[in-house]
């Protein structure tokens, strides 16, 4: 574990700056700690750096300066393969555009992370079936993404993200493409999973109602955290 990591933190960003070329500074010396089982929402207008923060947090991108740590491991000290393994083993990801493999069924999509971790086909599918039942897709196991509604696709994406019980879940506008009723269902589902599995959630959203499901809400503007709030718990 890195000397500078804080006990109880799963994700830490320390003075992280990200520049694209010489002109665009997407993040400007951001520091952030996310504790285990905490739910943190990142809000802000388009171009404020939310998605960049998420990409840095999962090691898909590297900061120009500063340090990103996951479970105490500084990502900059890991090579691409090690960062990829870290993602595979510790981070679940949910996207606004679902990003399911179009050629695989719901069951196959959901079991994919376990298969990539080397679990046998049968066991992976057994667990994926359980997870899909948990997100309410018992009847849609053999459907491919183009045969599912938007909400169903996002449920499959959640099942895929949580199938291996990752300590950290990164969600990029998970309700952005859904109607409000379906969006609420997804957020409630995430709340339940957080309670049951203790998963830490970093949620990027435009939606205040979605942010209200979190323990902490950070507002980003021009690459800086300009506000931090703790919304009242939803009854």
């Amino acid at each position, binding site marked *: 574990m890195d000397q500078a990591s804080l006990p109880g933190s799963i994700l830490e960003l320390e003075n992280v700056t990200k520049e694209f070329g010489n002109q665009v500074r997407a993040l400007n010396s951001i520091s952030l700690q996310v504790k285990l089982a905490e739910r943190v929402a990142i809000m802000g207008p388009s171009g404020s750096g939310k998605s960049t923060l998420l*990409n840095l947090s*999962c090691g*898909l*991108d590297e900061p120009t300066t500063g340090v990103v740590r996951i479970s105490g491991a500084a990502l900059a000290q890991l090579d*691409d*393969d090690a960062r*990829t*393994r870290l*993602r*595979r*083993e510790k981070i679940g*990801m949910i*996207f606004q*555009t*679902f*990003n*399911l*493999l*179009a*050629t*695989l069924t719901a069951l*196959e999509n959901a079991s*994919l*992370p376990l*298969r*990539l*971790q*080397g679990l046998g086909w049968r066991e992976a599918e057994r667990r994926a079936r359980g997870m899909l039942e948990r997100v309410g897709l018992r009847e849609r196991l053999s459907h491919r*993404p*183009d045969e599912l509604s938007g909400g169903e*696709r996002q449920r499959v994406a959640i099942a*895929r993200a949580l199938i291996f019980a990752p300590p950290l879940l990164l969600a990029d506008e998970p309700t952005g493409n859904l109607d409000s009723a379906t969006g609420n269902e997804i957020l409630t589902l995430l709340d339940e999973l957080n309670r049951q599995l203790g998963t830490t959630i970093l949620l990027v959203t435009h939606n205040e109602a979605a942010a209200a499901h979190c323990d902490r809400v950070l507002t980003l503007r021009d690459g800086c955290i300009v506000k931090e709030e703790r919304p009242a718990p939803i009854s």
Partner: protein
Amino acid sequence: MWRTLLFISLRDWRNHHLRALITIIGVAIGVSTYFALRTVNQSLLASLAATVDKLAGKATLQITAGNSGFPDTVLATVRATPGVTGVTSQIQQFCRADLNDNAWLLILGIDPESEAQLRGYDLGGMAVPSGTPLSFGNPLAFLKLPNTIVLCSAFAEQQGLHAGDHLPVITSQGRVELTILYVLRDERIGSLYGGRVGIMDIHTAQKAFARGPNIDRLDLMTGDGDDVETVRQRLKERLAAGLDIERPQQRSQQVEDATVMVRRGFLMTSLIALLISSFLIFNAMAIAVNQRWKEIGILRAIGVERRRVRRMFLYDASLIGLIGSAAGVIAGYLIALGFSRLAGQLAHVLSVSMPSSLLPMIAAPEPPRFHAGYAGEAIALGMLASLISAWLPARAAARLNPILALHNIETRQRERVIGWPRLALGATLVMAGLALVCLTTPTIGVILQLSYFLLIFFGLILMLPRLAAWMAMALRPLANRAFGSEGILAVDSIILAPRRTSATVAALMVGLAFVFSLWAFIQSEKAVLLNSFERRVDGDLQAWSTSAMTEDLAAQIAALHGIRDVRRSLFSTTRYSDRMVTLIASDMAFWFADANNSLVTGDLQQARELVPKGEGVLVSDIFAARSGLGVGDLLILETPTARLERPVLGVIDSKATAWLEGTVYLDRQLYKMYWQDSRVHWLAIDLEADADPTVVKGEIERATAGGPPLFVETATEIKRQGKATVASNIDQFFRFMYVQMFIVTFVAVIGMINTLVISVWERQREIGIIRAVGGTRRQVRKMVLLEAAAISLIGLVAGAMKGGFDAYFMSRTAAVIFGGYSVPFTFPGLLVLVSLPVLLAIALIAAWWPARLAANTRVVAVIGSE
């Protein structure tokens, strides 16, 4: 994890089955061409070898000595050699039957007595097993009767001849009527020369064809307890080094050696077909990476390492390679079966490159057999080509930025045209290749010389994406003016995706360049050989016969009024450094007397003095280039009687004769002394100043009317007719190259269809958007057709460019490697022009289905789906 990744790839095949199918077809095309040509090659060689075995019978050793044969006095030495238990002699002679169609007949002159020891025959239902003594009961004994022949059934049936009929043939003694003793139904002999074979007594044949005491082959049996190799060594010690003493199997090797050029040609064709396929696979795989862009991003995001993404595409390529190659092997075998129907033609083509001593070995090839080793080789090559072609797309997939890949299709980076450094590197390689072709000497080494070709090839491949984009930009104004927005969209599609286009253009470029450069090379060769032939025709009249002439006949002609002198020539072959070279034995004093005859290098005065005395020889420029011998060097030839050592006193330009391995010119007396052969094949006749060639020609024909029919032509006639013959011979020799050109063109066209279909498939979304914003089906169809036309135009320009470079390489370097001399560079401009409308038509036909596919794109499905 690999199973999961392969599973994902297989699922992708299900979604993009057309792309997968077409890629498999791409592999199958290359592999099938390779396997078919390999199988045909092998079946031809196998049947030739089988014929050698059949002919050998019980013979364990054979003795030969090129075309001229060797004196039959050797027979006594061979018989007296310990370990030799039986020996029989044979001559092989082609002659014309004086029938309606003047059919050629292969005469085998055999010694019935000793022949019966080695081989059995089936004489019209009367089986004569080998070992049958030549008694009254052995029908072969009747061959001892004068002017008798045994005819093969194929020829007899073709000509309506039966036992007891007379067969008129043209011999060196004139027209002779031979009595047909039997019609031979013998599979062994019948398989030779299309069954156009007759068997005569060897002594009758020697006399009829002015062979003197010479024979062409001795077949030996060795005792059961004797080691064949030991007997061979004993014979080598006793006989002249100019005699080849080999096992029959080694003669098969000779056949293989003699056909090596043709087989290399077929190998080259099949490798070019594989290369074209590789471009198709590359294109398909690159498109697959594009189509699976988002999938790669997802896999990277959920924890698949770069190397595993790369491997996923390589697994994909391996599987496609395996399936395509297996299909290619099956298709290739079927093609080979179809090809075998043309095998007679191929056997003839193969025979062109053989020394004439092996000509009788040309048999009707047997149907091709499935060769598991070749199948394995073809599958391995197909898979290797797939893997190599998929390497760059797989690497690109592994390097894909997952953040960009996870976004929607609109955010994809525009395909960058390969940068200036690569263009500069490509141009440097091309320039370096051309400079090396231009500046280095032919003796630098084959591998180095072939590397020039590769430098030019790789240079052009590096430059191609940018060149394709430039050419498309140059076409843009024209496309706009002629076809409006559809033309612009079609050309823009090429400009925006130069990599995708350049793979198709590269496939076309390779195919067309092969065709263009071969064509240019053939035209250059033809021009050089015809020019050389014209310069070589000497004498006011030329006379020759379908059978060799005797010296007496030549003397009879020389004595006629109006004739100043007659130069007698004989064409033969001999072995030099394991290659069969041509020998021309002439009256060299007369040769030097002709003012048209001169030396390329060497002291003419010295040569004129010494060569007619037999104290030196001349060699052709081809021989000099291939052997490395020059003026002043000692030429050593092993003849049937003794070793001949003479200095080379001059080099002459003689590309029209024996242009494969070169020619040695020596005085006739010297040849007779060493080869014991006094035949005459050709007379060059110089006339007195006041003699009328036409009158003397008539005089010669009258004087020789009783002997063998003579063909007498004036120099003008022979130049005209001879040029046509030489041109026809060249065409015949290059016929197999025309076959190769056809195969390569076919593969390239299939490749174009393949790529267009894939390209349309890849751009379904783009086409859907065009339809969504108001593009009609007709406009979409037109756009695809125009894109195909533009690609074919760019391919043609690239092909012409590479074809020009290759033609330069072939004329300067390849011609020296394979032929021994360089030929002038010819740009195949006319063929390029003729190809333009043909290629455009092919492109439009090829694009018809893809255009239909594009026009019928389901708009909502392609722009709305994830």
